[in-house]
């Protein structure tokens, strides 16, 4: 019985009488697939020897294929013959290193396992909410402490963060709100014109921007900008053990990192919301003037007469809540960063997604609440 290692660059011949497989050529990683196939066709029960005299090159892959075949299938195997000293030492090394498969941990794929995973998810969801509440508690506690001991509070740091989260966000927030005003006016006018009710476009713009869109979109932009910045800053400090260093030096991360950041957001988000409201109304007025011929004076009159001040109040009262959510989510995610760079990236994007999601959920809750109490 003969097999020729076709184009693969090796040869394999079984001598039936002596039970010897004569091998030749290169037994390497490039030929190992073909070698395995050839060996698979050999009647293993008769094999007692491998003759490696004509082998020109043997690497670990080749040695592995021979040893694997011999261990698995040759019951009365005796020896390798004709191996050079290098090949012999390679065979011995590979033989000693043959992996001993360990039982992998039992993977249950039944309904019970699914239920188990589901339960764990739910519990970890609640644990996450609890952790966020704990961070809110830390913030409020440290804030109260700062009020009682103002000397511990870092005023410079607060101003710095106010600039970062507030002042530097003004252009993007104002531009965004202006464009939203333009879009509302344009869409509103096309729809309302069908009923000859163009003038109500002022009410449409005013109510939707003042009540909902101004502050909600501002909060979403700030969540994207600031929650990620908080996570990245605190997370990289956590990664380099700076947070641990602070603790050993008696500096409280809550007081030094969380309070200035979240407080800055609490101060700045209502201001940004107000700016967004003004920019949105300005955009709407401009578009109403261009598209519908509603003069700025008429727009103002209509705005003051037709829109209750309560709409502004309903909008801006949400700002501090959104600020808390964004700040707490950002700081909490930063503290969850481990010592590798992947977790920093993962937590940063987690923080943004969670913050935006939580802001929208809170907004929905507010809507229901205000509808119930008829504001």
């Amino acid at each position: 019985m003969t097999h020729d290692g076709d184009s693969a660059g090796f040869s394999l011949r079984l001598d039936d009488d002596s039970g010897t497989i004569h091998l030749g050529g290169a037994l390497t990683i490039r030929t190992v697939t073909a070698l395995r196939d050839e060996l698979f066709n050999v009647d293993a029960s008769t094999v007692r020897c491998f003759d490696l005299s004509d082998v020109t090159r043997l690497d670990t892959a080749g040695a592995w294929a021979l040893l694997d075949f011999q261990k698995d299938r040759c019951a009365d195997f005796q020896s390798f013959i004709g191996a050079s000293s290098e090949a012999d030492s390679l065979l011995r090394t590979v033989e000693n290193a043959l992996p001993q498969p360990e039982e992998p941990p039992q993977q249950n794929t039944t309904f019970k396992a699914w239920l188990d995973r589901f339960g764990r998810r739910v519990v970890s969801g609640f644990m996450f909410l609890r952790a966020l509440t704990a961070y809110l508690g830390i913030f409020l506690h440290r804030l109260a402490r700062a009020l009682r001991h103002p000397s511990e509070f870092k005023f410079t740091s607060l101003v710095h963060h106010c600039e970062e989260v507030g002042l530097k966000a003004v252009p993007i927030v104002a531009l965004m709100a202006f464009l939203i005003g333009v879009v509302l006016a344009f869409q509103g006018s096309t729809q309302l014109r069908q009923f000859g009710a163009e003038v109500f476009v002022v009410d449409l713009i005013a109510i939707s921007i003042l009540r909902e869109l101004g502050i909600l979109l501002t909060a979403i932009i700030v969540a994207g900008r600031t929650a990620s910045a908080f996570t990245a800053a605190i997370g990289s400090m956590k990664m380099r053990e700076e947070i641990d260093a602070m603790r050993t030096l008696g500096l409280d991360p809550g007081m030094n990192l969380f309070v200035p950041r979240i407080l800055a957001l609490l101060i700045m988000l209502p201001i940004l919301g107000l700016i967004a409201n003004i920019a949105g109304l300005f955009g709407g007025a401009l578009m109403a003037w261009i598209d519908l011929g509603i003069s700025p004076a008429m727009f103002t009159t209509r705005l003051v007469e037709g829109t209750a001040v309560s709409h502004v109040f309903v909008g801006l009262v949400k700002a501090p809540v959104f600020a808390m959510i964004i700040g707490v989510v950002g700081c909490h995610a930063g503290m969850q960063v481990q010592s590798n760079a992947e977790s920093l990236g993962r937590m940063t994007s987690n923080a943004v997604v969670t913050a935006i999601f939580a802001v929208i959920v809170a907004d929905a809750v507010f809507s229901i609440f205000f509808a119930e109490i008829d504001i």
Partner: protein
Amino acid sequence: MTESEVVIRLRGIRNQFGRQVVHEDLDLDVYRGEIIGVVGGSGTGKSVLLRTIAGLQKPAAGSVDVLGIDVLNADEDTRQKLENRWGVMFQDGALFSSLTVRENVEVPMRAIPGLDPQIRSDLADLKLSMVGLQYLAGDKYPSELSGGMRKRAGLARALALDPDIVFLDEPTAGLDPIGAAAFDELIRDLSHSLGLTVFLVTHDLDTLHATCDRIAVLAERKVLVTGSMADMLEVEHPWVHEYFHGPRARAAVPEKSTKGD
């Protein structure tokens, strides 16, 4: 051993960053089957030298011959073939973090045409086992491994294609003494049984002593001397003398040097 074939031949290497010259007129020969350790003070360009040979850093002047191929002037195909004949282990393993350890070891094997995926996976397990990692470590991600295990996995990846030469950058840095000694032994064993030529850059005197056949000292922008540990102890140059006779050296190089190796 020193009479055998030269596998790495450096001639007149010059490396510079801006106006700072790291290497000037540097010559070095590495012979087949030996373990050569490169030492030098901080900033003498040990890692730069390694990167130069491995083709990651283009020298300003000079020639690099590896396995008889002029690395700097070779065309793409030749270079590609050459890269399959050497493996590099970076300081922290440099494993791809999005792949499991086994998949990391499989990465170089993917270049082999027609290699059966099951065989590839089995071979990766074999390599992991050869560098002393446990069977289940293959399923883990690099971030779940300790520093020492990451280095071992990095070595397994470097050995994936049975290279002729492996480059090791600070193989024992950051390991505890027991882990470092085990790694030294691993390098020595693998080098012997696989006939590897090992080019390692290190600060660790114990590693030099335990593994290296020959030591090359980088100083004054070139390879100042090469030779065995015993030769190093004879060198008069102040830095070399301080390095091999300092308090740490006396701890690392005890009786063996008096035996004359």
